[in-house]
Structure formats: structure tokens, C-alpha cells
């Protein structure tokens, strides 16, 4: 049932960076030479847009494959080498509704359906990155926790986001109690981290240490807050590393020259490479933790 080489990105609360982290990690994996498949289990379907995929099936083929009407879900090329995607969207609510009625909310049945559908398109070397909807106990979110191998929880530092960590972790433990098998919790990564907010950072760290009960670590890596870089990259369907490359590749004229020629020039976030480097560091740390876990 569990997909060995898979990372589920989840948090009980929305807006904590799940989709952004999922997209960036998958692109980073593909840049490192691994085959990667993104799976969007969120009816909001933001993952495809973040990668610049506008026209897709809203999860319809995944629903069809999970229900057994199609042999496999439709796999979209993302334009990046070695990175493919199975899109989500509002159609997933049909799968969720059917699962509620058929399995009475028991996540194993739905997880099995989705896992079988996904395995039909995976290559042995693929890593799968799964984005989830913002709700613990939601059928799709639960299914991801049952079919995925590793769990990464992004969070911001406000209390609601932190409590979302606690909620998803409780759900992981409940599911493990029922099934006797638990997803491997890699750790919690702090998203939109503001280095200058020392008191907030200290409070958040303290809260996490007190509430994770040693079940999973708080990762050393953080994803720093860079509003312009994030807005610009999402708007153009690029992840952080690609935005940094774009900024580095773009040759800008001196402002007076551009003005003389009447040429509009792009402006880039000054710290375009900051977040790109953060994701590289995060990918390194996750790889190390997974390798260490496998060695034990």
C-alpha cells in the first residue's frame, strides 16, 4: 500500500506553505537527477498553477483511475526534465464523497484506491511528492498519510499554524493506532521564517519542542520569508530555484540606458537566491534523514 519513495507534505492548517514546499522539493529532486512525480490531492489545485500548468483535468483522471474506470491517471509533463505531475482539483471531491459513503471515512480503502492508481504510472526510480488539503481527518489527507512513506510538516510561527502541526501529528498517531503502521515523520520545517523576529522564533521553537513529544524533530533548515520572490515566482509558474536562475540570467541595462531606449526592465527580489538556497539545504537535510532512517 505505502509508496516507498514518497514524501507527503501536510499540516492541519492552510496557508502554511504546503504547496510551495511540495513544488520546490520536487523540482529540486528532479534537478538532482531523480525522477519525480508531483501528486496534488488538494481540491484547491494550486500546485499545478505554481508550476505554470493552467489547463488540466482538475483531478478527474485520478478519480477515474482510483474508481477503476481508467487504467491510470493522466500524467502531465511540467516542462522540467524528469518532473511529471498528476493534477488535483475540485473533481477530487467526488472521490472523497464516494469514499465517505463506501468506506465510512475509513482511510484505508481510499488510500488503497489512490495508491493503486499512482503505482500504475510510477517508474522504479521515481520519488513522489504529495500535496494535501488543509484538514486533518479529511478523507484525502488521511489517505495520503496512509499511502505515503515519509511525512514533512511545514508550519508558520503563529499559534494556529503550530496547532495545525499538533493536529496532523495526532491524526498520524490515531491512524497508526488503527492500522499498526505509521508514516515516517521526517520533521517540521518552518516556513516564511523571519530571522529578525527573535522572540517569535524562540516562542515557536519552544512550542514545537514541548508539543512534538519527540515524535519528530524540528528541522535545522528553514524557508525564509521573501515576499517579492515568492509572489513573482508563483505568478510566473516558477519555483524558487528557477526564479533565482531567471534573475541571474537576465542581463539588465543600466537604468539610464533603459530609460533612454524606453525599455521596460524586470525587477527581481534582491534576495532571489536566498529561498532557492533554503530549499537546497532542506532537500539535503531530508535526504540525510531518510538515508539515516533507512540505515537503521
Amino acid at each position, binding site marked *: 500500500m505505502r509508496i516507498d519513495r514518497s514524501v507527503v507534505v501536510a499540516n*492541519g492548517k492552510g496557508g502554511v506553505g504546503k504547496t510551495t514546499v511540495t513544488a520546490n522539493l520536487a523540482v529540486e529532486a528532479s534537478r538532482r537527477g531523480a525522477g519525480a512525480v508531483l501528486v496534488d490531492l488538494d481540491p484547491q489545485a494550486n500546485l499545478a498553477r505554481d508550476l505554470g500548468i493552467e489547463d488540466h483535468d482538475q483531478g478527474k483522471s485520478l478519480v477515474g483511475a482510483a474508481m477503476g474506470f481508467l487504467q491510470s491517471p493522466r500524467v502531465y509533463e511540467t516542462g522540467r526534465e524528469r518532473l511529471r505531475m498528476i493534477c488535483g482539483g475540485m473533481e477530487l471531491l467526488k472521490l*472523497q464523497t464516494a469514499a465517505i459513503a463506501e468506506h465510512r471515512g475509513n482511510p484505508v480503502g481510499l488510500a488503497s484506491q489512490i495508491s493503486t492508481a499512482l503505482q500504475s504510472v510510477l517508474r522504479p526510480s521515481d520519488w513522489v511528492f504529495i500535496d494535501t488539503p488543509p484538514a486533518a481527518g*479529511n478523507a484525502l489527507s488521511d489517505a495520503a498519510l496512509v499511502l505515503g512513506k515519509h511525512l514533512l510538516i511545514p508550519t508558520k510561527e503563529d499559534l494556529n499554524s503550530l496547532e495545525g502541526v499538533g493536529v496532523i501529528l495526532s491524526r498520524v498517531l490515531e491512524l497508526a493506532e488503527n492500522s499498526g503502521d505509521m508514516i515516517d515523520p521526517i520533521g517540521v520545517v518552518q516556513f516564511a521564517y523571519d530571522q529578525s523576529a527573535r522572540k517569535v522564533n524562540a516562542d515557536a521553537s519552544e512550542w514545537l519542542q514541548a508539543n512534538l513529544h519527540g515524535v519528530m524533530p524540528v528541522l535545522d533548515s528553514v524557508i525564509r520569508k521573501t515576499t517579492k520572490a515568492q509572489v513573482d515566482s508563483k505568478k510566473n509558474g516558477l519555483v524558487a530555484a528557477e526564479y533565482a536562475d*531567471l534573475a541571474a540570467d537576465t542581463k539588465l541595462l543600466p537604468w539610464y540606458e533603459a530609460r533612454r531606449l524606453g525599455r521596460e526592465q524586470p525587477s527581481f527580489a534582491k534576495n532571489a537566491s536566498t529561498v532557492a538556497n533554503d530549499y537546497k539545504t532542506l532537500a539535503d537535510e531530508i535526504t540525510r534523514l531518510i538515508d539515516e532512517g533507512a540505515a537503521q
Partner: protein
Amino acid sequence: MTGLDDAARRFKEARFTKAAPTDADPLSDKALEAQIAARLSESLSNPEQDSTSEQDQRQSKPQEAPAVSEAPMPDDRTDSEWVIPDPVARALGGRARVPVDIPIRFESLRLKAKGIGMPSGHLVLAAMQTYQHSLVERAKAGEYHKVDRGFVKQWQLMLHETELAALDQLVDEVSEHMPRRSRALVTTLLLQHCRSEQAESV
């Protein structure tokens, strides 16, 4: 197009591969839609069925319904809000009103349901599950105040008998995941209201 958009477009043209044409589905979109709709309808008509193992079935035994589902309907409703029955209010720590923002959210979902050709009731049912955590958390935080009665009536009209049955199960499931103190979830309230309205209309 801004300078950034233009630069990003050129960047993607240079760096990204052209998307390969996707293999055609063995089933046309319409045929697939029809099959999914039929499956949904069947699932909701026979909510007892479960294709998983015996062990799964054991795990998915229905939970005991929350006691509040038998609570009497309130009689001091106004046109714009609906007061929570006493037992529920007590369970919510003394809060006595449900939120006004939920109707807006579900109205938007109802429109989306139309857009994808899904029965509205099915979508509302799924949406309730999608948002169940946020409902619980916000209820606990005392953020719920009132609900638009017009919406609740509309919702009641959208739900058919089978959907009400499925929602009933959902409420049981939701209640199971909630802290004991807050087991009276807003879904229970709305379901109760729908039932009551339905009973009145019969």
C-alpha cells in the same frame, strides 16, 4: 506584459521542454464523467457497501451518534441567525450561535458544483468534510456566531435523502475525531436543522 513576465516567458522557452501531447484517455471525458457520476450515485444510495477487507470493515463500524442529535430545535430563531440548541451550546463552551461565513463559503461551492456537473448536495457533503477541522477549531475558539437561515434552507433543499444519510455518517465520523468536550459539531447543528425543516415540510 511586464518586463518580468516577458523575461519569465523567454526563460521558460529556453529552459523548459515542450509539453508532450498527453495520451488520449481510453474513455472520453464525457463517458468518464458519466461513470463517475453513476458510481457516486450508487455509493450514496448504498452507503453500507465497502469493498475493503474484513478488517477494514471492522475498523469502520459506525460510531455512536452524538447525544446532541436528539436535542430539540430552538424556537427563538430570527431571519438572519439560528440559535444553537442548549445541549450543543453547552458543549461548545457556552457559545450559542453558528457562523455567518459558512453560508458564503458553501454558496460558492454550490456554484462550483454546477460548474463541474456535480450534484450540489454531494459537493456540500464533501466540503463539510474538507472543512471539518477548521469548523471544529473555530467552534472551539468561539468564532461562530450566527448562520444565514436562507442558506440553511437552501442547503436542505439541495440534500436528498441518501445524502442526508451519508451526512449523518459523516457527522458520526467527525464527532469521533473531536475532543469530547466539543463533540457537538456545527455539522450536527446543520443536519439537525435540515431534518427538522424536512420533517416540517412533510
